[in-house]
């Protein structure tokens, strides 16, 4: 029935719709710098047709929905990228921390101490009876002992560090999981209300944060909620959260940690900061400690073996330079006998005071291929360790440096869909403003027409 009054209501709807448009534009502009925000678009549709004498004509415009512009594909890319980057960043950090323990480039590492130790033995071999040099040998032996103790305790403190960071991460992760489940619940309740865009943004921001700790795959359900999987395990299923717990075991002094989902399912992380922390704690540091212990053991055993076959200044043999039992990098000690009296340092092969051959036999151990089935000297073995540590740190640093550009690009791509462009919003605002003005013109025009109609009757 297309009368004047219907044009009135058409004008009114146009006014209101454009007003919503300006409102949403305002909302977008207000949130331009909010990183979690997804831009919104007013979805305008033409309103239902009305039947008139001339056929069907439109009855104006209406706001069908306010859409949240976001692409799931880019989300999953960003989440994957963030997990990977967080893993490598953490690796770079720990790589740096660990390599600072191997300070041989500053001439204060184990290799430096060992060199000094071997050299001292040669000096003693040159002057077997000299008490000053004997003291020096004991001092250099203590230098090696201290170095090993220091490296051991610093490696242990790295693993303590990692453990406390794991625990801190778990608190954060479990909190995030809870919040995601909670937000899911709210979304399910308000799926078709206006609040839901804000809730969806908030939920996705939570997953964003979660993706830095663990790897994340989100599966979207029809009602807008998501299930979150991490390393093939469900951690959020709609409104249910399955928290992660930690189990630390100790074997031969080497600690190992494992993760459980919901207290029962063991899970190996695929990426994320947590994966790196677990790697460092369970394999990285224990591996280095074990290697250090291997060096210590073979060093002590071999030195003691030769030292024991030599004669001391008192003509005794069978004396150990280092304590024989329970040898590890953390427990190596100079034997009590040598600690008490440097005359107990055994140098002589024949028993004669002037015989330094036994000392040279010890100093020649620097060439002895004691490790890796007779392939590597102590120094070689240690150097491989340093190279491995350096490689790891370099690899992690390079990867995280390069990959941060990739993640940056992924975020930019996501932003190019969901982000607010001020230019665009300003243009939209002008468009809505003009439409609003035009709509108000329709109303004044209809008003004038009505006046004309009323005037006709007089």
């Amino acid at each position: 029935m297309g009368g004047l009054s219907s044009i009135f209501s058409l004008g009114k709807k146009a006014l209101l719709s454009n007003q919503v448009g300006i409102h949403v534009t305002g909302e977008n502009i207000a949130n331009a710098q909010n990183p979690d925000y997804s831009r919104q678009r007013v979805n305008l549709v033409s309103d239902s047709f009305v039947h008139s004498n001339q056929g069907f004509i439109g009855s104006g415009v209406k706001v069908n929905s306010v859409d949240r512009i976001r692409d799931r594909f880019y989300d999953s890319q960003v989440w994957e990228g963030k997990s990977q980057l967080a893993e490598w960043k953490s690796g770079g950090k720990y790589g740096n921390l660990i390599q600072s323990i191997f300070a041989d480039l500053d001439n204060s590492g184990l290799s430096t101490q060992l060199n000094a130790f071997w050299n001292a033995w040669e000096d003693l071999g040159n002057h077997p009876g000299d008490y000053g040099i004997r003291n020096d040998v004991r001092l250099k032996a203590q230098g090696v002992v201290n170095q090993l103790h220091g490296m051991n305790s610093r490696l242990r403190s790295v693993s303590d560090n990692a453990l406390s960071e794991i625990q801190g991460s778990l608190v954060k992760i479990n909190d995030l999981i809870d919040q995601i489940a909670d937000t899911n619940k709210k979304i399910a309740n308000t799926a078709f209300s206006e609040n839901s865009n804000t809730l969806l943004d908030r939920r996705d921001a939570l997953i964003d944060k979660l993706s830095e700790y663990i790897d994340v795959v989100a599966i979207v359900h029809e009602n807008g909620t998501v299930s979150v999987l991490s390393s093939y395990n469900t951690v959020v299923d709609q409104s249910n959260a399955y928290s992660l717990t930690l189990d630390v075991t100790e074997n031969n002094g080497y600690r190992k940690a494992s993760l459980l989902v919901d207290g029962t399912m063991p899970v190996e992380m695929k990426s994320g900061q947590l994966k790196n922390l677990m790697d460092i704690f369970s394999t990285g540091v224990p591996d280095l400690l074990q290697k250090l212990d291997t060096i210590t053991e073979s060093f002590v055993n071999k030195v003691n073996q030769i030292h024991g076959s030599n004669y001391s200044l008192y003509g005794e043999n069978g004396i150990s330079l280092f304590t024989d039992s329970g040898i590890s990098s953390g427990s190596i000690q100079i034997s009590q006998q040598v600690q008490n009296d440097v005359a107990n340092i055994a140098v002589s092969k024949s028993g004669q005071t002037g015989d330094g051959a036994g000392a040279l036999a010890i100093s020649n151990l620097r060439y002895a291929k004691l490790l890796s089935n007779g392939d590597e000297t102590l120094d070689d073995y240690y150097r491989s360790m340093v190279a491995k540590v350096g490689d790891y740190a370099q690899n992690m640093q390079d990867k995280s440096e390069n990959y941060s550009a990739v993640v940056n690009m992924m975020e930019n791509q996501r932003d190019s869909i969901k982000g607010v462009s001020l230019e665009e919003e300003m243009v939209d605002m002008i468009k809505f403003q003009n439409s609003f003005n035009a709509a108000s013109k329709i109303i004044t025009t209809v008003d004038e027409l009505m006046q004309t109609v009323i005037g006709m009757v007089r």
Partner: protein
Amino acid sequence: MRVTSQMMGRSYLNNLNSRLTRINKLQNEISSGSRLQNPSDDPIATIQAMKTQASLERNKQYSRNITDGKYHLNMAESSIYEMQQITSRARDLALMGSNATYNAKDRKTMAVEVNQLLENMLTVSNTTTIDGYLFGGNQTEEAPFAAARDSSSNRITEVSVTGDVSGKILRNVGQNDSVDVNVNNKNILYGYKNIFQSLVELRDALEQSDVAKIANKIDDLDTVYNQSVNQLGIIGAKGKYLDETKDRLDEESYQLTSSLSEIQGTDLAKSIVQLQQEQLVYQAALSIGGEMLRTSIVNFLK
């Protein structure tokens, strides 16, 4: 691609950051003079640097061992020179004593001098150094040559070697390369001819004015003298070997030092040029960023 306001800021910050990281690294390299701060800077070069450093330390020790060994040899050499002097003086006296122009009294006086020479010879044979007896092999605490003396005159009747004086005194001068610097004096003193015995016999012959016997000793003393010349030859050869080894070690250390600085030293010219380039780009980025980020359509709307 749609460009949004956050994207520009993010990319801009990211690039500035990586630029700064590089500038920081270059500054570290320049100020420390070393391009290796951490093993991760170049793991392979780190290993090489460590290896080179270890070789340098070893070489330093070997040089020290050589200096020490040389000291030992020099001490022995000068003692042997002294022995030679004693021997040749004794030979002179034997020559004089066998000459018929001297009488029995003169020979007695000569006997007194020979006796003194004998005592000197014993003292020199028992020379000590900081490490103890020089000619005792590795028995450094016990005098290697012990004299038996006549109970009434307290004169030496016989000198014997105590224990084994052939023990090696080794100096490491390289991997699997050690030099025995012990000078085994048993060879000189107890070689084909025993010098102590020769001197005792000479003294006694002079005392008894037994010209034939005195003349007999001249040959003995010549033999002993030649023995000591041989020994000096051996010492000289060892000393030469040590000197050559030291030269080689010095040369090697020089090479090692220069390769070490090549491995871990900063190429200053290169690093400084790089730093300047980075700084230039950084400044350009800063000023462009300031312009671009401020520009917006809002500025042009009325």
